[in-house]
């Protein structure tokens, strides 16, 4: 069997799903089937990668005369492997958590499938042109999802989100252009394998590295909601419909971090090292400023939005640690955060759909009325605090150990961030769990999750969190050779 076909299949299956829905097949069922079927090429491809330990390539593109140096090549190595799996799982559960009978159901599920498709394409592209393009593919569906099916100030949130993300993308594009043009004419390529090889052999001059690294930091940083480019994130997530928030916070945001791991660290290592003081400063802003801001939130969805942006600070700490351990921790936390954010937004979506509110003070007594929902809420909160046994803990502890020698102060800051996050989350959980039953919760028709049909997305995410938490090796093991190559001495 030709395993190279599994990679295009990963992209083709959601696309077929989109076409079928457009042609009138039942939206949710089709989208679910597409996501479930997509697990098969996912298994096959990752099996190949794990067995050979090398990059698995898609079929060779038809050679064309090179007038524009881009090639559509797909490839998967240990680093993309875990992110592809994160996408597959979150896309599946997000579609599972999507409501049936939502208005304009067709477009809703098409948009969701397209976000997943864009993320998969970005993680699988070897050519940076397509890597960038696939991420943009996911932006318009996000805009439409927030604008059409969102709540609160959905128009404002959608515009803010889109403008920020576009601006970030354009700055990042400038960084990529700069990188491309800094190469000697004969060695110009957008293929990340070629680029990393060439640049390891002949590093760029420090000045150019500096500029490119700064552009990449601001560009990717905006996509990852690094302070001070974060202000699209909390409001955007609070307004987005639950599956869109799950996909964006869970998966699409990781594109920025993946890009830093794939482009900035290996290709402009000296530049990245040079600006790591700035990264340190900004990530402290993420942890402390957004951590304090999350304490002030009264709306559960806003709280999740802030805390999701806040945890990105810890991942950045891993990225500037310069050790394999720190990078492995960053990767693990990326996956763990993706899963826990998805679970959190899924629960928040269910709660506000059932009770009609997401104000924590109006949700007292939820634990008694809907114990299952509250249980998954606990899991999401505990994961995001960093309870041992859940994925985020594994990532955070590796980051702390990995960056202790280089940045002891920042480790202290990050540890303080854990405290802040614990206070915010535990207050939220407490407000919703105990106390007298509030009218919104007591109201007629507020029900718990019922049966496998409603609970499976939550259960899948919880199991994945536990699995990664107990065996983080699953995530960073395959990526280890890649991380060793890019870790800074």
């Amino acid at each position: 069997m030709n395993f190279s076909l599994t990679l295009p299949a990963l992209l083709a299956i959601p696309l077929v799903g989109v076409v079928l829905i457009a042609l009138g097949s039942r939206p949710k069922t089709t989208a679910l089937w597409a996501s479930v079927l997509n697990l098969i090429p996912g298994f096959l491809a990752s099996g190949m990668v794990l067995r050979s330990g090398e990059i698995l390539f898609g079929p060779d593109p038809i050679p064309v005369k090179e007038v524009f140096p881009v090639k559509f090549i797909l490839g998967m190595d240990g680093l993309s492997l875990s992110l592809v799996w994160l996408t597959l799982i979150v896309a599946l559960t997000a579609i599972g958590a999507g409501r049936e009978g939502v208005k304009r159901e067709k477009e809703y599920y098409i948009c969701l499938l397209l976000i997943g498709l864009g993320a998969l394409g970005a993680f699988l592209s070897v050519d940076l042109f397509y890597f960038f393009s696939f991420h943009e593919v996911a932006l318009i569906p996000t805009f439409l999802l927030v604008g059409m099916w969102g709540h609160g100030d959905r128009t404002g949130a959608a515009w803010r989100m889109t403008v920020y993300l576009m601006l970030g993308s354009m700055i990042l594009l400038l960084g990529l252009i700069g990188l491309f043009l800094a190469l000697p004419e004969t060695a110009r390529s957008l293929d990340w394998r070629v680029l990393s090889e060439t640049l390891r052999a002949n590093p760029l001059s420090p000045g150019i590295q500096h500029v490119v690294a700064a552009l990449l930091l601001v560009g990717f940083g905006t996509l990852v909601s690094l302070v001070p480019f974060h202000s699209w994130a909390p409001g955007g997530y609070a307004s987005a419909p639950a599956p869109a928030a799950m996909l964006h916070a869970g998966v699409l945001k990781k594109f920025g971090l993946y890009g830093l791991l794939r482009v900035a660290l290996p290709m402009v290592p000296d530049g990245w090292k040079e600006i790591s003081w700035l990264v340190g400063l900004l990530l402290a802003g993420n942890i402390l400023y957004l951590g304090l801001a999350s304490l002030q939130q009264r709306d559960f969805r806003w709280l999740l939005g802030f805390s999701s942006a806040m945890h990105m600070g810890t991942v950045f700490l891993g990225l500037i640690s310069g050790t394999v351990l720190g990078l492995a921790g960053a990767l693990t936390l990326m996956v763990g955060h993706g899963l826990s954010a998805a679970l959190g937004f899924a629960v928040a979506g269910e709660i506000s759909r059932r009770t009609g509110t997401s104000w924590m003070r109006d949700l007292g007594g939820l634990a008694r009325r809907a114990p299952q929902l509250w249980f998954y809420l606990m899991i999401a909160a505990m994961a995001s605090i960093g309870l041992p046994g859940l994925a985020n803990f594994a990532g955070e502890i590796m980051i702390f150990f990995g960056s202790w020698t280089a940045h002891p102060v920042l480790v202290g800051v990050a540890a303080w961030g854990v405290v802040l996050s614990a206070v915010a989350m535990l207050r939220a959980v407490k407000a919703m769990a105990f106390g007298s039953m509030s009218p919104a919760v007591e109201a007629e028709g507020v029900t718990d999750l019922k049966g496998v049909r409603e609970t499976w997305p939550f259960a899948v995410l919880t199991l994945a969190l536990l699995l990664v938490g107990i065996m983080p090796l699953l995530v960073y093991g395959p990526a280890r050779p890649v991380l060793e190559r890019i870790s800074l001495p």
Partner: protein
Amino acid sequence: MSAWFFPEILLTLAGVGLILMDALAPEGIRRRIPLFALLASLGILAWSLVPASRVLPTSWLSLFVSDGLSAVFKPFFLLCLVVVTAMACRYRLEADETVRGEFLALPFFPTAGLCLLASARDFLAVFVALEMVSISLYLLAAFHRAKPASLEAGIKLLVMGGLSTGFLVMGIAWLYAGAGTTDFSRLLLTQAGQGANPAALVAAGLILAGIGFKVAAVPFHAWAPDVYEGAPTPVTAFLAVASKAAGFILLIRVFGLGAFALESIGTYFRPILLTTGIATVTLGTLAALPQRDLKRLLAYSGIAHAGFMILALGTAGEGGIGTVVAYLWAYLLASLPVFLFINELENLHGSTDMRHLDGLGRREPGPSLGFTLCLLSMAGLPPLAGFPVKLAVLANLWNAGETPALVVAVIMAVAGLGIYLTPIRVMYWEREADVIPARRFAPFLIWVMLVAGFLGVGLGLKPQWLARVAEKSLNPLPVVESIRE
């Protein structure tokens, strides 16, 4: 005279034939004029694509040349003509059906002029070709004799066009006074190796102003929105796509590679082009944002696109020129379907206000999807054709080290997203419209829009195709090649 001259001849003959037919033929044939016009335009387009019709490079009387640039742009103008003719067949002429024949015949003449312009290698030829284009367009813009807006458009176009021709002719006169010739390649030869000649500089400035009107570059842009809004929609499409492209061909021939491609003049004009580009892209983008009329919106967005192309030209060198050629093709392939869609919208509702898009995403999913894809291509989002060309503009600016222009271009590319997302938002998110749900688009529009939209996706995923067109237009290098004869 060789075969490459045929499109112009055929176009003129077809135009004259249609007018005669309209005047003399019996009623039964007259009713079929739209069909004849469409077939004629398609036939000439097909002819221009036959490889045998393009012998490269040959020149005629040292006035016209057939080279890569003209070979790439003749099909461009003919494709415009086909779409404009199709739009004119469907356009509502407000109870004045008797003039349909003229309305269909007139666009053949400016197209012939544009094809001539694409091959012109002498300022005299340029001038004649341009007049051929302009006079027919004045007529077409004012075609709704009963509508004040259309008359206003005609008058504005006439006055502004006259002014721009004045600049151009004045420039040509200065040039002739200074160099004694109007031939592009001879100009290049006589000027080479000399310092900047003041007469040549004045001439270049005046000619640049003249072309600036054509492409609607700031500060010569003010006519565009009013004329676009007032003119009949098929004419607007012609102005927005074909006429703008003609301006850029001139810029390429004159400033890019031809008469003024010399370093002595380039050093003066590169900053001017860059400044104009920055101003144009900024004004076009910012002014397009609040527009609620689709034709006005496209007028300003066209100004913004012109700004991007001027910036690419301002970087000098073949990279910038190839970028402009590819950009024009991507712009053509996105904006012609958009105008076709607007034409149909106007047919249904009688105006081009954006509120007619309300809820369209649900009522007409197919055309709306195609329209959305074309708009996103204009916005320059991947994976659509507009992305690689915008990327090429940015890469050129970076390569030339033009940081301020680069920064402005990036900011405006992002802000420009707002222009195109606004109609999309109206189609998909706005309250369900209660306006006349019974009226439906003609069925052909579904397929046309979908094909156009997915063509944009295809070109975005395979930018090599656009790159090959750009490469072809520069092979052999226009004008420069003919010096070696």
